[in-house]
């Protein structure tokens, strides 16, 4: 039985990667944001998870509109990354965990989820920024990663309730995997923000706080929202709540909140950070 040690919800915006590269963590703009990562890094260093199941969305590096998966899961031995066109520094490749990937894929399809399976895929900042910031100086190289992508770009995209249920099925799969490995689940992206249109720059940190409350106590309440609701209430890219819901869905029972931070603005977003442990 693999052991699920906890969930970290984190932003994944490119500006964080650049701040790390440029050593800006202690500058006034960034210091409050990065202070939140200290307990996260300590938790990871103490618990030493073997595997990270990482929910992210591809922003047009590998999953173009020509063949765009609604849900996708990596089943590769290694995941490369790239500069994405606007110059984010590539980082050393992530190491995969194919045995657990296939175990999850088999379980998902048996349980009526039909994701796209990716045996070769480049991951973008949605995956690399969380790895860089949680394991500084590329110290993630002993962690095996399973990237799981949810379409957050083109409507229709999975309903929040569906992303939650998808995560629930992945959690069941991890728990049924015959192994002693320790697994941490990462829900990335969000929280409220809107990049596009005359409404760009819109944030809703009251809603973000409520979401972080509900992720602890009543995640199913968040499943009542539609993606149109989230667009209206949390901005067009507020739909990235999907990855936090999927990550939370991996935990079947109650959780306790150990750390939380909400910092805005970080680039054009409200950046959430949350550590939840099985209660």
């Amino acid at each position, binding site marked *: 039985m693999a052991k699920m040690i906890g969930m970290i919800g984190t932003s994944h915006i490119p*500006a964080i990667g650049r701040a790390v590269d440029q050593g800006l963590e202690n500058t*006034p*703009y*960034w*210091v*409050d*944001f990065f202070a939140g990562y200290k307990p996260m890094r300590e938790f990871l260093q103490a618990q030493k998870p073997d595997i990270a199941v990482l929910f992210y969305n591809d*922003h*047009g*590096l590998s999953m*173009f*509109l*020509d063949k765009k998966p609604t849900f996708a899961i990596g089943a590769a031995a290694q995941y490369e990354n*790239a*500069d*994405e*066109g*606007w*110059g984010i520094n590539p980082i050393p490749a992530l190491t995969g965990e194919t045995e657990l990937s296939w175990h999850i894929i088999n379980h998902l399809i048996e349980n009526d989820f039909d994701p796209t399976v990716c045996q070769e895929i480049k991951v973008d900042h949605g995956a690399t920024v969380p790895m860089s910031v949680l394991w500084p100086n590329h110290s993630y190289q002993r962690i095996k990663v399973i990237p799981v992508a949810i379409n957050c*770009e*083109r*409507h*229709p995209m999975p309903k929040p309730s569906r992303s939650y249920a998808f995560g629930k099925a992945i959690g069941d799969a991890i728990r049924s995997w015959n192994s002693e490995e320790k697994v941490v689940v990462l829900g990335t992206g969000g929280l409220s923000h*809107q*990049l*596009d*249109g*005359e*409404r*760009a*720059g819109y*944030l809703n*940190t009251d809603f973000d706080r409520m979401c972080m409350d509900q992720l602890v106590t009543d995640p199913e309440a968040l499943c009542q929202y*539609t993606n*149109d*609701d989230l*667009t*209206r209430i949390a901005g*067009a890219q507020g739909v990235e709540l999907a990855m936090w819901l999927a990550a939370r869905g991996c935990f079947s029972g109650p959780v306790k909140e150990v750390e939380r*931070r*909400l*910092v*805005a*603005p970080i*680039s*054009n977003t*409200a950046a959430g950070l949350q550590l939840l442990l099985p209660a």
Partner: protein
Amino acid sequence: MADSSTPHGTYKFDGAMATLGYNLNRMCFTFNEAAGREAFLQDEAAYCDKFGLNEVQKEAILKRDIITLLRNGGSIYYLAKFAGVLGLNVQDLGGIMTGQTTAEFQAYLDSQKVGKPNG
């Protein structure tokens, strides 16, 4: 009944928009690669033609008119790559779309500040 209205200043990127903007987004997708970026900068109009952008989209690319690109099927994910080619970041882009300077757009973001006692 669920409220499916789209807020003002928001361009829902759905099937119809993805159809309208396919060639535009396909062009911007090539900016993932240095070769695509260089070819575009060498002759922007010719590069637009190569990908079959319509006249409205092509003119908007040449004029850096991001709102018109959004209205004509541009996905912000690929328009961000276009901005990258131009050396603009997402705050610059926010300023352009909201008719403000980058500093004014940043000030709007800062007016929503939480959790930053030091910044």
